């Protein structure tokens, strides 16, 4: 039985780790995209300027914050895992954890959060999360494999930069 499992594990190694990377990405995305807007509201309220949330321009600010502090890091974490486990064909493979994470997040928001999929805002709820997620995943995946693709680490003479004693 154990032998069978290990045979399947080897056979579907890439697929398993792509899915696991996607799940990590999804969990990070769902958690951060749920917590961050609330955190911003709490901070604004405690600073005594909650009224800022009333302005339409705040949508762009929130979008940038979500991109930088939620979608990009979530994709990055998923990409780190996938890149750690899989070393080949990253250019194609890294796309899948990002897509799994994004699709999972939309599904979770619609089932748990009660968001209607047909009323999703194209820019705020589709394009920005998807792009952030994909960029983050690729950056994470290549961070784990960068040494193999780049030149060997530069070795320097420390004495060159040290003042003579």
């Amino acid at each position: 039985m154990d032998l069978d499992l290990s045979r399947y594990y080897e056979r579907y190694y890439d697929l398993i780790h792509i899915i696991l990377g996607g799940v990590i990405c999804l969990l990070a995305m769902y958690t951060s995209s749920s917590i961050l807007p609330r955190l911003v509201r709490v901070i604004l309220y405690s600073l005594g300027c909650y009224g800022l949330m009333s302005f339409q321009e705040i949508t762009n600010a929130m979008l940038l914050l979500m991109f930088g502090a939620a979608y990009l890091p979530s994709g990055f974490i998923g990409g780190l895992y996938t890149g750690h486990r899989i070393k080949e064909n990253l250019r194609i493979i890294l796309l899948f954890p990002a897509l799994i994470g994004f699709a999972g997040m939309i599904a979770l928001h619609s089932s748990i959060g009660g968001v209607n999929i047909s009323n999703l805002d194209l820019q705020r709820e589709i394009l920005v999360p998807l792009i952030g997620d994909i960029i983050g995943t690729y950056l994470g995946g290549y961070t784990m494999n960068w040494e193999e693709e780049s030149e060997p680490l530069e070795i320097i003479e420390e004495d060159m930069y040290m003042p003579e004693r």
Partner: protein
Amino acid sequence: MRRALFRPPLPLVIFIILTLTSCLAGFAIFYNILIAHDRGKYFNLETSHLYVEFPKNWFVFRWEEKNITGNKYGLVIAPLNLRVLMLITIYDENATKTYLTQNNVSDAFSVNMFEIEKLYNLTMKRSSNVRLRFIENGTRIVSGYNVTYSTFIIINGYVDEGGDTHDWTWTFMSSVNDKIIQIAYHGIEMDYDLAYEEFQYILNSTKIKG
């Protein structure tokens, strides 16, 4: 002595730069909005139909209702820590005609009475032992418009989440010209008094365009 120079992977550097840049840009927009709308203890908000100043820790929700029978524009202004709310609604010419015809009203006082009766009937459905007590009727100027107002308490009119009833104080004001302007603010028991000065400030700062 030789040592390796620490050089982080390029993707990690790009990730850090992207993250920091977008977060900083987001905060810069927050700061810019804060500076642009700062009026001391208040923020100013300008829409296509209204200008208001509201306390910094209150929130404002703007809404529009567009129909073939006319358009309505409005704001809801409320704090988070008190059970009070202010509503400002402006009807355009078509919506005004429709409202006056449908509800068989003609002036500001009859508009007030119609809305108060509607509200009273609504509260009676949710709570028993409801009584209506008028405090004050009068007129005042808001943004150059002469508005007629009525202040009243709906005794036991508000039912909270726990099922307890509270007295509900309202001020309802309206002006009927080529367009109807309706302003209402209300609060539960002491909360109304606590927010009263802020309501007056918002009212005095309100400018209705057109």
